[in-house]
């Protein structure tokens, strides 16, 4: 058995009297990939922030032993020097600098403060080779996609001679293909002796690449599972995470789908606003019955979000043609306001930067899309707002002190519930949900699926866009597969398997239907 590269012993951390880590023991063996899983707020990030020096030595109790030495990191720089590198969910790259400049940011190849560009680019290409990224180091970071940026981050860590890599949700924003590539790279690097700690909500990834899995719940380590020693199943991990047996990831739905078509997009065509002559959406027609959940599957960049945003107030695309039909009548959705008035709602994929006003409280966020209904002759009834926000807070179980809590202080799942409240408040007949469960934990996911079930039970139409295939397959009654702005397949629930979906994308032809 390999040596332990890292041991964290009896870690206790409190925030204003509340214990968020309760005597955590966590150790990682050298040359392994060790997954750390748990619901949001379980304490994973806190533990990693202690390890990387974000919370300085002295603000917690317990010992950190790294490569046999007891460490007392006061800053992130200290932990980096020791050989620990963190790759955060939000990438820390500077878009208008080149790949090479980013690789050596804070660690410049320089002599007496004067840059040695030849060496910089030479070393950069060597690092890029190690992570298998075929890009010119002179390329600006803004010009490469998120998947490649992620690789640049890893290369940057390697450049600092990191021996322990901590990856926080590295595949959350990646396509299926990029995710696979990244995980393969981690395995390769493991072969070269690099140790990684992988924080992820995607249990299938976790179980496929990790040598060990530690589950944290409510600031305590529940158990550490060893590959080839313990029986590792997703069910067991989920049970550990949520502390209760979850028979199904998706709540049962017993809704009779109406024969009536509630919502229809007909021959929707939009041009790309940046590249002249390129179609963003190419003759897309979809139908949603009342009480039906329709999934839009596809790789990232397949045009699903673009479709939704071009329909919802023409926020994307130009020269838009086609019609939107609700309950047999054509409706105008040319501005967001008109779309809302026609009872269409779109829950954006990016709740932080486009869904919420983070500096505002729950109450203001909940009412903002339906504000005129809280006013008589333009004058707001604040009491009514507060009462309504309280209703939704208890209905959707938004964990918070009160409705005046700022949304930036909520966990991802609770933020998402605020966004959902805001849209359900507009009483939509059609709800388009774009990545509704991205980056949120299993328990909150389940609750959001339950909300979706309630909506269709009330006869609404729901369209779900998700990059996680198991989710689309699990929640949808019917699935459209999109690729390059076109519908390339339509699958019923019984036909839909991950393989069929990928097949549709690859063959790029209509099958089934």
């Amino acid at each position, binding site marked *: 058995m390999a040596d332990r590269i890292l041991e964290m012993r009896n870690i206790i951390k409190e925030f204003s009297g509340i214990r968020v880590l309760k005597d955590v023991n966590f150790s990682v063996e050298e040359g392994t990939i060790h997954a750390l899983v748990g619901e949001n707020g379980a304490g994973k990030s806190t533990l990693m922030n202690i390890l990387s020096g974000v919370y300085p030595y002295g603000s917690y109790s317990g010992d950190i032993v790294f490569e046999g030495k007891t460490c007392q990191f006061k800053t992130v720089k200290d932990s980096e020097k020791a050989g620990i590198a963190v790759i955060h969910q939000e990438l820390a790259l500077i878009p208008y600098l080149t790949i090479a400049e980013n690789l050596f940011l804070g660690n410049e190849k320089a002599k007496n403060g004067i840059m040695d560009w030849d060496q910089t680019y030479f070393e950069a290409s060597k690092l890029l080779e190690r992570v298998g990224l075929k890009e010119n180091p002179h390329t600006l970071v803004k010009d490469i996609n998120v998947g490649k940026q992620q690789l640049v981050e890893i290369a940057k860590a390697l450049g600092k001679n990191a021996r322990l890599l901590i990856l926080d949700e590295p595949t959350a924003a990646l396509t299926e293909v990029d995710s696979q590539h990244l995980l393969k790279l981690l395995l390769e690097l493991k072969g070269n002796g690099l140790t990684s700690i992988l924080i992820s909500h995607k249990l299938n990834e976790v179980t496929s690449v990790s040598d060990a899995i530690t589950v944290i719940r409510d600031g305590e380590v529940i158990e550490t599972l060893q590959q080839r020693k313990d029986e590792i199943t997703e069910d067991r991990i989920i049970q550990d995470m949520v502390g209760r047996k979850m028979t199904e990831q998706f709540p049962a739905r017993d809704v009779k789908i109406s024969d009536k078509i509630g919502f229809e997009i007909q021959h929707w065509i939009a041009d790309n606003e940046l590249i002249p002559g390129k179609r963003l959406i190419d003759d897309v027609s979809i139908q949603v019955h009342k009480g039906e959940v329709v999934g839009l599957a596809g790789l990232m960049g397949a045009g699903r979000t673009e479709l939704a945003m071009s329909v919802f107030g023409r926020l994307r695309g130009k020269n838009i043609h086609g019609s939107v039909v609700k309950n047999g009548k054509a409706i105008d959705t040319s501005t967001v306001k008109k779309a809302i008035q026609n009872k269409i709602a779109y829950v954006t994929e990016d709740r932080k930067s486009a*869904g919420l006003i983070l*500096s505002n409280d729950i109450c203001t966020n909940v009412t903002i899309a339906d504000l005129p209904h809280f006013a008589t002759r333009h004058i707001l009834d604040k009491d009514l707002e507060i009462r309504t926000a309280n209703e939704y807070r208890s209905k959707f179980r938004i964990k918070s002190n009160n409705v005046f809590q700022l949304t930036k202080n909520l966990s991802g799942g609770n933020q998402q519930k605020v966004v959902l409240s805001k849209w359900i408040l507009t009483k939509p007949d059609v709800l388009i949900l774009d990545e509704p469960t991205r980056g949120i934990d299993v328990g909150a996911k389940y609750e959001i699926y339950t909300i979706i079930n309630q909506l269709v039970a009330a006869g609404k139409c729901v369209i779900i866009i998700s990059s996680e295939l198991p989710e689309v397959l699990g929640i949808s009654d019917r699935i459209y597969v999109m690729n390059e702005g076109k519908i390339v397949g339509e699958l019923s629930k019984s036909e839909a398997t991950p393989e069929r979906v990928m097949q549709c994308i690859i063959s790029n032809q209509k099958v089934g239907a």
Partner: protein
Amino acid sequence: MNNQNTKKSSSVNLRQYSMLIALVVIMIFFQALTKGIFLKPQNVTNLILQNSYVIILAVGMLLCIVSSGSIDLSVGSVVAFTGAILGVLIVQKGMNTWLAIIITLAAGLLIGIWQGFWIAYVGIPAFIVTLAGMLIFRGLTLYILQGMTLSPFPKDFLAISSGFLPGAKVGSFNITAIIIGAAAMVLYAITEISGRQNKKHKGYAVSSNSVFFAKLVIILAVIAVFSLWLALYEGFPILLIILMVLIMAYSFYTNKTVSGRYLYAMGGNAKAAVLSGINTKKTLFSTFVNMGVLAALGGIVFTSRLQSATPTAGQGFEMDAIAACYIGGAAVMGGSGTVAGAVVGALVMGVINNGLSIMGVGSDITQVVKGFVLLAAVVFDIVSKKRSAEV
């Protein structure tokens, strides 16, 4: 849990009132240093009249800052430009005062439309557009006035800034000021108490009796003392009525109306605002149109106070207005800030100006002090926000 809630809300309230408390402390400080001259009835009236234009501009500026974190650099030049228009119309052409005022306000509206168009619909940064405006309108002022100062203005125009409501003196008290003060107290008490009853009736949560009545009594006392002080001098200034209507109207607008809420929403997160069906372009446009009109109003008030239209009028006013907003707690990136805060910010600077000048301190040192106060206020705001975020 409950305990925690109340604790949290009281600390938030304290921060809200911290600038007001600072203002009171500064006033007491000057009262002591000037051996009681500072709070003499005459000086209190003066203080209000002196700072009226900064308050007017700060209210407009606040809306720009809240909606988008942008500032209008042209307001000082617009004050001069509208003053020049008044000079030409009233002094040179002998036009009717009211007609001239309406034309001047319309000119402000057009200026606002001009700048708002470029900012909101073409997407040019406000900083650039209004920097251009600063040069353009200053240049036009010089062109119109040909370097001359125009005066005299007729009495009815000068009354805007120096007139008082008519009223006899009873003893040493002006009766009008007393009546207005008493009316304001009754009105305030009735609206507060009936609002609270209404809330209770509908079953909404209300603050505890002691907190409610303590606040009520303090505010009533402030109104009483203030109106007595006005009564001890010449009475109720006409300009103060304009200011109060303005402050109340804009407080109401930002707090209680749908489009007021939209300002804060788009300042907090423009993307989320667009996705919530808010026409952010229209909102941004209207804040700059509003700024244009208020700058013209500032021009009217300042010209009336100066009793002449001069080419150099209004220089640096934009900075006073911007500083007032930031001292009053507006966020640099937009999304937060209150009208009351901006007014308090303007008063803080006005009080410092006035107090130091009574003490015989020159304008050089006064500027230095104002600079430090601005920095200190924003540092305090940011540090206390950080601290509350860490908890």
